[in-house]
Structures are given as structure tokens and as C-alpha cells.
């Protein structure tokens, strides 16, 4: 028997003990909390390319919003136009010219003065290069003049609402991007951009693909200096892992949470949840055909009475509870609620109720009698009312909503074949028209024009869900697009929403809340935009990041009563940033590791001694 065996076993156990002490000592403090100078935000979508011209995902938009300024921005109150780089903008009598005056003393992050030339360059650049995200705000033929360093004049060949919208275009430095004039968009998107040059409160300095993106405070920012020196976006491709990271204090804010995790998140001590007013909506869209000659949607869905009956038969509140765990509100109109100024709230007494009895009565009166199998039959075509209804798996809650709708409609004699499909398949179906109805989602801009336009006749075969064609609606949308009077436009926008609500080409099922959770003992003073139930992270504005500061300990007992961001400064939150929360898990005490190591040593000793009695016994077989 080799004398080295027990010694090697002891060596292994000693190594285990050392490792255990090391791990135990390390694990208790290394990632338990952010340091006071860095704000770490967990995100579920990464930044594939930090280049502003390649912006695509929600996180990329957040990164751009954090770093750049618009000439006029979305106000913190209600997302209407408000001063940003420009301290004022005026239009001429017929709205064909807008003159804006920049603030004094503006600088880029590298110290170069920011002038009207940068603004003019940016607008010309996006138009000439055809960056479609940004060009839609400028009528064809727009030109820009810079009579002096602080004045920019936008001349439009036709009246434009211009800076009242405002144009969602971030101003970029001419001295950086001027070299790319005439280059292909491919070359522009591949330009190396780090460290970035911008005018906002933070500048991206480091990007670790698939992992994290670091923003340093801009020393030349024109606004209030933020408290945090650094902001880090961290990617979590697993929502449960992000929640654990929030619980452990690895991140201070968890953005983009799914509603299914809401109960678990709300149970974590020192965590507040911001249920953000919806900037998207989930809809059940009907197909009216016409996308393709082979498209064959159910003809009965063209009957308004059938669509009205379907609306009456769907319990939207139940969908909100079961598909979104209450983190949503029943849907109504097609302009999202976050566009506070434009969104039409249907008065309670005019909201279509959940009334399957009335739905049945409407269908009975319309002549849709039930067959022997209980399924109603179209009196015009003789077809049973069977709806093929794909649900897109990139729409949270759509699968459950689809199952619920199938059960609801079965009560009024309509069979629904709900089928979850991928987003890619949904596009195929939308283009081919090979469906009867589907569940998908829409999001949009603060300005309602884009959202309203997708329901117009000309969008059939393009963005339209089901090729609904209605001349009255088309006319309303055209009028609001050309109207310069803000009050008149508001009236038209609301009328368009009401019209869609009444004609039911699509049923807005729910307005899902976006969910952001944050540690009240690590970060405080996150300003929501828009005010109240708005975004805490950069979505339309960086205000929340500028106002954020490390939470300070004043009263340990106050940590138990920490309030959400809206309406509360969070100043009475628990621990000093940089120290582990008293309620966060931070690893077992070192003495426990010692006991575990002793147990391991004892077990190894027993095993070795037992093997001494069997080692030399010859094997027989």
C-alpha cells in the first residue's frame, strides 16, 4: 500500500478547506453591492453595436438617449416638446420656417464647442444618408441655415409642425461624423466610436460584447452634474438570474422585467417596483384580406356585428389578471397611454363591457345560427365561424391571452384555433394574409402619427395588420397629419382613436406595464419620465439618471418602509451604498466553512482507512 494515498487525501482536503475559506471570504463581499460611484443597471436586451447609426434594440436606444441630446426634447412631464440644446424655437406665420436658439456655452464631451453647425450637419446627414428612423420628421426639400453659432433655421417647402413634435433626432458632432459624409451606411455603422463624443450626461467608454457597457460622466455636460461617476448596463439573458442579481445587490436596477416575476420581485426586501404606464399595446387584429391573391380570411369577420360580438365576449380584465398578473390595464384605444397628451381615455360608461349574453344576442339577430356542433354558421357563405388565430411568442402574455379568448368565444359559438408561432412566422403570415385574426403588439412614438398611420389603407401589404381599408379613417389620419393647430390636431387624433374603437378592425386587449425594480437601499431619487408612472431608466429622457444618487443611511428602520420612486425621494432608504444590505444574502460566515472542511477531512479519513482493508484484496471474476 502506498504511503502517499492518505497524504494525498489530506492534501486534497486541505485544498478544499483553503478554497472554501477563500470562496467564503470572497463570496461575502465581492458582488453583494454596487460601490457608491457606479450605478449598475440590469437589462434583458444587449447592445450589439454602440454606434448611434446602428441603433435598433431597446437597450441601444437607452444608450443613445443617455449620451445624446435632441434640439428640443420630450418633456419630463408629458413627453411634449420642451427645450433641450435649444432654449427656444419659434416658427414663422405659415410654419415653413423654424428658428431655434441654442443655449450658451455648449460643449461636446471632448471640449469642442457645440454650435448650430453641428445641428445643421446632423439633420442634413440623416436626410442624405437615409437613416429612416430619423428622416420622417423632415419634409422633402428641407434645408438648414446657421446665421451664427447659436442660431439654426429650418426651412421647409411645406408647413410643418417641426419643433412642436419634436423631431426625435439626436445631435451628433460634425467634427467626428463629418468624415463619413458620402460613405455607405455599412461603413458608417462599422465606424469605431469608443470612447464616444456626445453632449449628454454620460458617455460610453467601454463595451464588452454580450456582457456590459460602461458610461462615464461627461465633464462638459451642460446640465446638472449627475451624482454617479459611472453607469454600467449589464446584460442578463435570464430574467430569473437578473432578479437574483438584484436581490444580491449585484445590480441596483433591474429593467424590463416580465410580469410573471412580479410576485417574486415584490417579496424582496428593500426593492421597489415601478409599473410604467404602457408605451405599447397587445391587440387581437382581424384580417380583411387583400395582402395576397391567395389570402383567404374568414369572410364573416368583415361583418362589424361579428367583431362587436367578439369584443363583448372577451373579458379584458381577466386577461390582465391571468396573462399579466395585474401588471397591465385593459386596452381601449390605439394610441398608447404613455403618450399622455394624445391618448384617448374612453369614458367608463362608453367602454364596451364584458357581456357574452349581449354578444350572443347580436349574433342571433344577425342570423349566425348555431350548427349541430354549437358552432355558428355564416348565413352568407355557409362557413362555420372558425378562426385561425396565431399568437406571436415575442409578445408577452399572448399565449395565455389566446387560450382565454378561445374559451370566451366558444361561449358565443365561435371556434378559435390559437397557435403560438415565432415572430418570424408572424411576419410571413402578416404578409401572406393566411390567417383570420392574430395576437401581436404595437409600440410607437410619443407623437401619434406613426401609430395612427399603420391602420390606413395604404399600409395594406406593408405595416397593416389585416388590411383594413376605411376612407373615413384615412381622411382623419391625413387631416391630423397636416393640421398645424395643436388643439385641432388633438381633436382629430382623438376622433381617429374613437373611430377605430367603434369600427373594431383590431381589439386592443391590454396595455402591459413595463416593469423596473430597484434597490431602495442602493439608489434613490430616480425621476420618472413622464412624471408619475414613467420610465426610470433612459427611454425618452436621461433625467432619471441625472437625478439618481446613492441612497444614504439615516434610519435603519426606514428601510422597511421604502416607497416607490414616484412621489418619494427614497431618501429614507436603508444602507449606505457600497455596503451590503443587512437583508441581502452575502455568503455563509467563514466559521461555517471551517466546520464543513472538518467534516470533509473526517470523511476522507474514514474512506482512506476503509480502503486500506480492501486495497490489496485481489479481484476475482
Amino acid at each position, binding site marked *: 500500500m502506498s504511503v502517499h494515498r492518505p497524504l494525498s487525501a489530506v492534501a486534497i482536503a486541505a485544498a478544499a478547506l483553503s478554497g472554501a475559506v477563500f470562496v467564503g471570504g470572497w463570496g461575502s463581499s*465581492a458582488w453583494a453591492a454596487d460601490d457608491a460611484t457606479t450605478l449598475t443597471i440590469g437589462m434583458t436586451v444587449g447592445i450589439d453595436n454602440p454606434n448611434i447609426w446602428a441603433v435598433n434594440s431597446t437597450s441601444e436606444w437607452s444608450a443613445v438617449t443617455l449620451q445624446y441630446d435632441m434640439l428640443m426634447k420630450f418633456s419630463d412631464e408629458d413627453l411634449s416638446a420642451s427645450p433641450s440644446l435649444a432654449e427656444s424655437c419659434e416658427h414663422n406665420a405659415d410654419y415653413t420656417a423654424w428658428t431655434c436658439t441654442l443655449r450658451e456655452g455648449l460643449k461636446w464631451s471632448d471640449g469642442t464647442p457645440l454650435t448650430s453647425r453641428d445641428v445643421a450637419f446632423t439633420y442634413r446627414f440623416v436626410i442624405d444618408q437615409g437613416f429612416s428612423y430619423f428622416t420622417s420628421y423632415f419634409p422633402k426639400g428641407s434645408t438648414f441655415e446657421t446665421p451664427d453659432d447659436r442660431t439654426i433655421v429650418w426651412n421647409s417647402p411645406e408647413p410643418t409642425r417641426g419643433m412642436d413634435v419634436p423631431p426625435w433626432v439626436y445631435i451628433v458632432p460634425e467634427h467626428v461624423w463629418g468624415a463619413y459624409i458620402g460613405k455607405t451606411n455599412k461603413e458608417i455603422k462599422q465606424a469605431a466610436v469608443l470612447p464616444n463624443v456626445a453632449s449628454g450626461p454620460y458617455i460610453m467608454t467601454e463595451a464588452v460584447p454580450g456582457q456590459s457597457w460602461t458610461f462615464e460622466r461627461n465633464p462638459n455636460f451642460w446640465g446638472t452634474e449627475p451624482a454617479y461617476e459611472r453607469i454600467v448596463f449589464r446584460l*442578463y*439573458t*435570464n430574467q430569473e438570474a*437578473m432578479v*437574483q442579481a438584484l436581490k444580491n445587490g449585484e445590480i441596483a436596477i433591474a429593467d424590463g422585467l416580465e410580469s410573471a416575476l412580479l410576485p417574486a420581485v415584490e417579496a424582496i426586501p428593500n426593492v421597489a417596483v415601478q409599473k410604467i404606464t404602457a408605451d405599447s399595446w397587445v391587440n387581437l387584429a382581424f384580417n380583411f384580406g387583400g395582402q395576397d391573391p391567395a389570402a383567404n380570411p374568414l369572410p364573416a369577420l368583415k361583418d362589424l356585428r361579428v367583431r362587436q360580438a367578439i369584443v363583448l365576449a372577451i373579458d379584458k380584465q381577466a386577461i390582465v389578471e391571468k396573462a399579466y398578473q395585474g401588471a397591465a390595464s385593459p386596452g381601449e384605444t390605439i394610441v398608447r397611454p404613455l403618450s399622455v397628451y394624445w391618448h384617448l381615455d374612453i369614458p367608463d360608461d362608453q367602454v364596451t363591457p364584458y357581456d357574452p349574453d349581449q354578444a350572443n344576442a347580436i349574433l342571433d339577430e344577425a342570423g349566425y345560427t348555431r350548427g349541430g356542433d354549437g358552432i355558428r354558421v355564416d348565413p352568407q357563405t355557409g362557413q362555420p365561424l372558425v378562426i385561425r388565430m396565431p399568437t406571436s411568442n415575442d409578445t408577452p402574455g399572448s399565449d395565455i391571452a389566446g387560450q382565454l379568448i378561445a374559451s370566451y368565444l366558444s361561449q358565443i359559438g365561435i371556434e378559435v384555433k390559437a397557435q403560438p408561432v415565432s415572430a*418570424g412566422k408572424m411576419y410571413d403570415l402578416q404578409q401572406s394574409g393566411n390567417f383570420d385574426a392574430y395576437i401581436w403588439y404595437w409600440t410607437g412614438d410619443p407623437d401619434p402619427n406613426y401609430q395612427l398611420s399603420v391602420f390606413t389603407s395604404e399600409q395594406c401589404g406593408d405595416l397593416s395588420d389585416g388590411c383594413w381599408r376605411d376612407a373615413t379613417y384615412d381622411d382623419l389620419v391625413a387631416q391630423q397629419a397636416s393640421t398645424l393647430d395643436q388643439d385641432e390636431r388633438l381633436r382629430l387624433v382623438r376622433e381617429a382613436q374613437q373611430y377605430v374603437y367603434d369600427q373594431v378592425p383590431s381589439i386592443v386587449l391590454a396595455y402591459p406595464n413595463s416593469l423596473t425594480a430597484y434597490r431602495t437601499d442602493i439608489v434613490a431619487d430616480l425621476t420618472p419620465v413622464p412624471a408619475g408612472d414613467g420610465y426610470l431608466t433612459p427611454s425618452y429622457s436621461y433625467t432619471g439618471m441625472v437625478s439618481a444618487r446613492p441612497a444614504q443611511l439615516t434610519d435603519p428602520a426606514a428601510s422597511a418602509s421604502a416607497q416607490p420612486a414616484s412621489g418619494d425621494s427614497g431618501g429614507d432608504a436603508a444602507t449606505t451604498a457600497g455596503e451590503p444590505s443587512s437583508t441581502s*444574502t452575502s455568503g455563509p460566515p467563514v466559521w461555517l466553512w471551517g466546520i464543513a472542511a472538518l467534516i470533509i477531512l473526517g470523511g476522507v479519513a474514514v474512506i482512506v482507512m476503509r480502503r486500506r482493508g480492501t486495497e490489496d484484496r485481489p479481484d476475482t471474476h
Partner: protein
Amino acid sequence: MPGDPIALLARSQRLSPEALELQRVAFGLDQPLITQFGVYVRETISGNLGVSLISGLPVWELILSRMWPTLLLVGIGTILAAGIGVLAGIRGGWRRGSRFDSGSLYTSMVLYSTPEGWLGMLLLILFAGLLGWFPAGGYSSSTSSGTTDVAMHLALPVLALALGYVGQFLIVMRSSMMEVKAQPYIDLARAKGLTDPDVRRRHAVPNAILPIFTLVVISVGFILGGAIVIETVFSWPGIGLLTYEAIQTLDYPVLQGVFLISSAAVIFASLVADVTYGLLDPRVGAT
């Protein structure tokens, strides 16, 4: 795969029909399939894997940026799984029917049949959530990226990967050991007076390990394909995660690049296994 990647951009990037068509032309998607294939072959031979439809960055650059985390995770995980599996298989096969053999066999079969993602989630909930011993995901901390920090982030995903794959190595090694143990030269070795450990170490293992060698080399070849599920569970920024993201966005150039790299790696590993097998086993080398 269903779905038109350019049509996806229509919604996400607000592209007009004219702009959509320009994108289609820019990526060559307006050409006949055979022409697209010819262009693909020509460009691939010249080392150009194209650019991402979504980010616009060169595919090579994207893959290279994820290479090191992949090598770390899948490399260490595979070596660990192979090491544990081989050692346990040797012991279990040598002492067939023993408690260790039964225990290790059943345990590895359970682990092998357990979905990786579920196993990963269990480890995450236990060690990162309940106990807080390890971070909940990612490659490194926000404010630190030293070796130890990366190692702590690597621990759970490596453990999940290793536990998931140890079974295949253990079962093959065990089976091979049992077969070798029944050979006459093993009896001869004992008859010569060699101790049991010496018989095992000097006569049984060198012969039994040949089949496992092929398995290990092939597994090394699969390293570059990444571990999609494990990387997604632990937010590990490897090639597997890149593949997952590309599938979601129908980023075909990235998918093609990843498939090409991982296929080439497996083919190369198979070639290495074939060549070196002959060197290890004189009987094969002689034929």
C-alpha cells in the same frame, strides 16, 4: 426558417418599402438563391463572412469577440466532465457492482438526462440566489474583471455544463473498462504478481481509454459551437448566446458564420482523432 429578416426590420427600424428594398439589395437578398449561394461560397473562401443584418458589424468580429468566453466555459466544462467521467468510469468499471459503481452510474444517468437549462437554473437558484455564494450571471463584475472575479462568474456555468456531460464519458469509460478487464492479458498481469492498482493502471486503463479518447477529441471540437442553453441561463457572453440572439432576430449572416466555424472545428477534431488514434494504438496504426 420562417420569416423574412428584412421584413423584420420594417417594424423595428421603421423602414419604408423603398428603404426595405434598398436593404434587400444591399444584402444581396434580391438575387436568385443560386446566385446568393455562389456569392456566399466565393466570399467565404476569401475569408469574408459578411455583416450582421442587425448590428451591421462584420460577422468575424462578432464571433471573435465571443470566442474567449466560449473557450473558457465550454473548454473547462468539457475537460472537467471528461476528467471526472473518465476517473469515475475507471473506478466503476474496475469494481463493477460496487456501491461506487452503482452510485456513480445512476447519478450520471440522471444528470445526463436532466435538461441543461433546468439544471443550470437549479444551481443558480441555490448557489446564487439562496446562498449568495456566486454571482447571478455574466462574465465579470461591473467594477472588477480580474482572474478571480471571472473564475467566480465561471464556476456555476462550468459546473452545470460538466454535470450535464459527465454521464457520457463515465458510461463509455465504464463499458470500456469492463470489456478490457475480461481480457486474458489482465489475468496474465495478475499472475505475474502485479498488484491490483498496478494492473489497472498499467494494463487496463491504457487499453480501455482508446474509445474515450475519440469522444474527448470530438467533444473538444464542439467547444466552438458554444453551449446555447447554459450561456443563456447564466448570461455568459459566448458564441452560444450569440447564436441564440441571431436566431431570435433572423440574423442569417451571423448564423451562417457560427455554423461554419463550429462545423469546421468538429471536422478538424475528427481528423485529429483519426490521425492520433493510429499513433496511440499500434494495432490500428499497423493496418
